[in-house]
């Protein structure tokens, strides 16, 4: 239905203002997609390059040296202290709640192989990942999981394997990802991953194949990789959900999924 057309200049104020609001919402304005190259991230890199990032990392690292004994289950309340714990090549840092992005969810369109956009590194074939790893990749032997759908090699040596969601691999918060496994040698590289955990995160000590590990659940946490100089590797930084981390010989492995602890542990036990 068409409303009778009244010339714009004689519209009453509220109607003219509504027309302006309508015009505003129809203007072609470049859309911003939140991500590693958005204005916030680019500004952050410039600030960090100018030396702005270091106070927090230094402060956290100092406090981290006050390593406390790890209880079977650590429920960290909002106390002004950090607890250092980790596995080879992996350290956890507790802090204030990681900021929850207010922007749109990860695009799920056909933009690349599953897991692209997560900053996992260069997409390669699984065979190439095996060659590039420099170590024996561990893969789940659970026949219901099958081979990975995508593989990535990061500049800092970590290999990531991604499975699309499947009936036995419920989708995670990241579009198109049902299971993400990252493997790296924590003992040879002076760099390390750092998990910045929410104070409300629940860290449960577990064993996988007789070796130690942790199940991290609760609010999403940051996962970043720091190079040997302690500088965060920008591309490695992202927000992740429930994660199982454990060691297998010289390797540190992390498994991210929506499986829950029991199923994640069961799957981890099948890695060979």
């Amino acid at each position, binding site marked *: 239905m068409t409303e009778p057309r009244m010339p714009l200049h004689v519209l009453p104020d509220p109607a003219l203002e509504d027309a302006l609001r309508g015009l*505003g919402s129809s203007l072609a304005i470049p859309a911003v997609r939140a991500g590693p190259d958005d204005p916030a991230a680019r500004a952050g890199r410039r600030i960090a390059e100018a030396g702005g990032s270091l106070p927090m990392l230094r402060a956290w690292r100092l406090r981290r040296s006050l390593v406390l004994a790890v209880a079977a289950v650590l429920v960290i309340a909002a106390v002004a202290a950090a607890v250092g714990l980790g596995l080879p090549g992996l350290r956890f840092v507790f802090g204030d709640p990681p900021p929850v992005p207010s922007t749109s969810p990860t695009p799920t369109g056909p933009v690349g192989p599953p897991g692209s956009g997560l900053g996992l590194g260069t997409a390669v074939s699984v065979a190439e990942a095996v060659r590039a790893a420099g170590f024996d990749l561990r893969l789940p032997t659970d026949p219901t999981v099958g081979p990975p759908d995508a593989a990535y090699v990061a500049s800092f040596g970590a290999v990531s394997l991604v499975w699309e969601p499947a009936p036995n691999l419920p989708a995670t918060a990241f579009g198109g990802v049902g299971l993400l496994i990252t493997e790296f040698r924590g003992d040879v590289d002076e760099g390390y991953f750092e998990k910045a955990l929410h104070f409300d995160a629940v860290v449960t000590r577990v064993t996988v194949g007789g070796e130690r590990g942790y199940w991290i659940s609760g609010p999403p946490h940051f996962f970043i990789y720091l190079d040997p100089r302690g500088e965060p590797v920008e591309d490695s930084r992202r927000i992740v959900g429930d994660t199982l981390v454990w060691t297998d010989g010289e390797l540190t492995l992390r498994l991210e999924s929506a499986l829950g602890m029991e199923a994640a542990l069961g799957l981890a036990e099948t890695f060979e």
Partner: protein
Amino acid sequence: MTVEGRPLEDTELHDATLIGRARAGEVMAYEELVRRYQDVAVRTAHLLAPDGDAEDAVQDAFVKAHAALPRFRDGAPFRPWLLRIVANEARNRRRSAGRRVGLALRAAEDRRPGDAAPSPESAVLADETRATLLAAVNALRAEDREIIAARFFLELSEAETSEVLGLPRGTAKSRLSRALGRLRERLAVEAGGDR
């Protein structure tokens, strides 16, 4: 980088937490703080200097705002404070580019890939009406256009509008009223002078 389906916390409380962490040197916290506002920041920059690269202006403004963070008044709303810095950056770019007007706001019918999708409410405005209104707004001088853009295109409150444009509240109010008056005059001319 994002998580779906998580309710936002109280905005100002959350901002205050991030501001505290950013002041303590945590760049990641600062990034997340400004990322909350980068959509409106890019809109602001684009509306004030549409020929420039809005994302670059916003990036520069974010770096400047970080340096200015120690001067941010605790408890004040962060969004208009940040947008003022964005607005200043965009205006400076417009001026230094030597473009007095050069306004090139486009309607969404000639959208390019990557532009935000028009909202359903924009559909209620007939194309012809929209084109007329857009031409009239584009023909206004910068001062009038800015306040109309802030109030109706960015949908800022009166208080936010005055802060973002750096005007006393009363001045912003009277300037808006005069800008709307001049817009009506333009529209009347377009309509054939039957005022």
